[in-house]
């Protein structure tokens, strides 16, 4: 009985932490982008102000029921993935709800929210939203392939579909999977570029051509929900990468350090890149990332 309450409390604390960390990371990314562009940039806590402001907007509009629930769909995904990904290893509070085979579950739950959100965006009737959604889905088909290849390589190498098992493997062998299966790591990182939707893969939002795409009709509380769910989701994905390839983390500072190191990759890549067109983005993922994915699988079959 006690352990269940621990778990539930741990899950809530995790979600709050994910929210804070995710927003801070996004704020830091804005700051770093500004410094790269030789600007002063907003303070790192700017995103908290933005979120607070969005939450304190007094009016909002919606175009129908699905539009109203779309952000809630998005939120499920984020919180579910945070709850399933083990945040800290070997900790009673932060081991969360993971179970055997959660990797496959995660793959599917991660698309559930965007799809629900896409339905909400569809009901707005704004053509920009629909275009953004089709671009997003197309891009998803692109980056899921190398991403799944990397995961499959890990699964076949260690004969498990559980994240905890993969962390344990790293603890036992003493090396991170990043080094023991490098090709899978490269494929996964390249796929991550698309997953985080920084440029050059920001074709979904594309503020200048699509008027921010699927979210173009969302304001106020809807945008707040989407923004916080995005930040939680970002943290979940980063933690997943850390768990899979960087050996997990046993305390929070180490976790923050590792996640931020991972986070820098898509961010720094994005700062210096212009935007791709959709088919270019898809072809990008089916080029070198796919090649590394195949290498990863071959590597896994050899060892």
């Amino acid at each position, binding site marked *: 009985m006690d352990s269940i309450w621990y778990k539930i409390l741990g899950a809530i604390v995790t979600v709050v932490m994910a929210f804070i960390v995710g927003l801070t990371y996004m704020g830091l990314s804005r700051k770093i982008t500004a410094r790269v562009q030789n600007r002063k940039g907003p303070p790192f806590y700017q995103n908290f102000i933005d979120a607070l402001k969005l939450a304190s907007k007094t009016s909002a509009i919606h175009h129908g029921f699905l539009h109203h629930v779309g952000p809630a769909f998005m939120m499920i995904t984020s919180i579910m993935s945070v709850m399933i990904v083990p945040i800290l290893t070997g900790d009673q509070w932060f081991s969360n709800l993971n179970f055997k085979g959660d990797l496959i579950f995660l793959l599917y739950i991660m698309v559930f929210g965007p799809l629900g959100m896409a339905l909400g965006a569809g009901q*707005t009737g704004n053509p920009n939203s629909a275009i953004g959604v089709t671009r997003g889905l197309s891009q998803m088909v692109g980056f899921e392939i190398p991403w799944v290849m990397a995961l499959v390589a890990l699964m076949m190498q260690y004969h498990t579909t559980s994240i905890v098992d993969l962390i344990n493997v790293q603890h036992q062998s003493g090396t991170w999977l990043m080094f023991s299966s490098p090709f899978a790591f490269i494929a996964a990182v390249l796929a991550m570029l698309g997953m985080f939707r920084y440029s050059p893969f920001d074709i979904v939002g594309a503020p200048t051509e699509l008027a921010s795409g699927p979210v173009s009709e969302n304001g106020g509380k809807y945008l707040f929900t989407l923004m916080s769910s995005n930040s939680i989701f970002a943290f979940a994905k980063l933690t997943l990468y850390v768990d899979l390839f960087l050996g997990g983390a046993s305390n929070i500072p180490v976790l923050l350090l590792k996640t931020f190191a991972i986070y820098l990759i898509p961010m720094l890549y994005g700062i210096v890149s212009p935007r791709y067109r959709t088919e270019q983005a898809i072809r990008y993922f089916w080029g070198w990332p796919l090649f590394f994915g195949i290498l990863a699988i071959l590597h896994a079959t050899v060892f």
Partner: protein
Amino acid sequence: MNTIVLIFVIFLGGAILTYFAGMLKGILKEILFLATVFVPLGLFYTQISTGDTFNIELAGFALKWAITPFSYLFALIVISVATMAAVFAVSAMRGTKNLGFFYANFILTIMAMMGILFSRDLVSFFIFWEIMTWSSYLMVVYRGEDVQKVGIKYFIFSAIGAYAMLMAIVIVYNLTGSMMIDTLVRAYPAFDFNMQILIPVLLLIGFGVKSALMPLHVWAPGAYSHAPMAYTSVFSGALSKMGIYGMVIVLVSLISYFPQGHWFREVIAWMGGITAVMGTLWAIKQDDAKKLLAYSSVAQLGYIIVGVGIGTPLAMMSGLFLAFMHALFKGTLFMVVGTIEKQTGTTNFTEVTGLIRKMPWTFLAALLSIIALAGIPPLGGFIGKWMLYESLMSSEHYFLVIVIFFSSTAAFLYCYKFLFGFFLGQEEKEWDYVKEAPALMVIPMLVLSFATFVFGVFPGLILNPINEAMQTLGYANTQGHLWEMSVIFNDWGNQVAMQPIIYAIIAIFLFFLIFLTLKSYKNTRYVTTKDISSSGEVPKEHENLTFSINFMQPFFRAVEPLMKRQIDKYYNGFANGMEALFDFTRRIYTGNGQTYAMYVVIFVIILLLLKNSFFG
């Protein structure tokens, strides 16, 4: 009288009666039709248990009808889809011509499917197979559109399948002297190598045609989209499963005893994988909902074939589970299309938009089925896909996993297209008159789509029959807990291990829904879809802002090279070659009596020469 015979008698009598009842007043013939569907199926469900048999001696052949747990599983599929589709058909087909013809064919199809499942001998199996083919062919050409193109294509492929099967049956009779399926299974390991290959291949061609396996699938899109939608939900939901049924028997009962069967299964599984990918890609391209669903059926059958083809216990279970789920959600989706066709008169995504507020219940059914189709967690499709991945992983088919995953990710594209095209987007004035369909059409859809939800949360309800069925097929008996191979299920079997997670999902969803609804509730307004942020421009009433033409264009620019070659082209090339050959034969048969007389003379001379040279 034996209940089995009774069922067939009712079916047959009902088919004839409803055909002539076409002249009767409306409600009477509808009741008659429903009675002929419900009574035998109810009889089957209540009166018949596995093990009932019926033997008859007919024209020198011993016919044996019986029901095994395995065929009982498929009978469940037939029952669930056929009853719902019948209820749907009554309301959906009201007011069309040739209603008696439709009813009779509908009943005949169901009878034939039940017959296939009952048959324990190849003769009655083949007869029922042919009845099924014929009645479905008549349904494909029911509307009389494009009969030349679509009907002939379906007919030719069915004929190829049927003759391949017939050939196999004749060979079997030649070798064993018996028509019983059991005899074939028992005698198969003793056949010589050529026969061991030839018989399964011939049978698989026959079953592959019905289950739309990759090179034999070309009939499917046209046939599925041309039959009346009330029938197509049976056609795609249940009838295509007959191919799977046969395929499982061939793969498990025959191929397993074949020394190199491993490679055979591998080929079938890969064909299934390619079917899934190509079906998905073509489905994304379609602008017509019927065509989209037809290609999607091809793709989904591809998954099932992958599971069945791999043939490990878990893979087989996932294949059968997916078969059941596919019957439920694809049956619903075809009914949804039928409803939309009836209410709006078109099924084209580029024409209809924004029906969600006009047809909310239809949308709910479509949404649930689409979620099940896409394989997203709380619903049934996910369980099947999960088991499929798990089995592919554990049987080391790693590249097949990626192929399947690509196909199921790309499936989101057409799933979204389906929902968006009909229900979302701008609400146009043109469609203001559309109303929700009558209750008789909505209820079957909702029942079937909620069934996907129920079976997603309590998969044990289906896994138990599947478990029994697989044990009759020869899989190991594990005290009725075959599903424990999969990590997804918990110890007490009939529920998913993720049950707490599902509760968590619902809890989080409700929490945020309440947050969104309560937060500044008074100041949250509904605005029409014309009131969108379009750079300050006010869309005029005739201006259609819906984005529906070239919907997935950027994706297709990326996959262009894959889509260039269509298998139809090869068939067309083949057909053209055949035509040239027939032209040549027509030159021989000139129609002139004198020429024929000359042929006879030449033939006799050749015979004489041959006789002299070889036998002289």
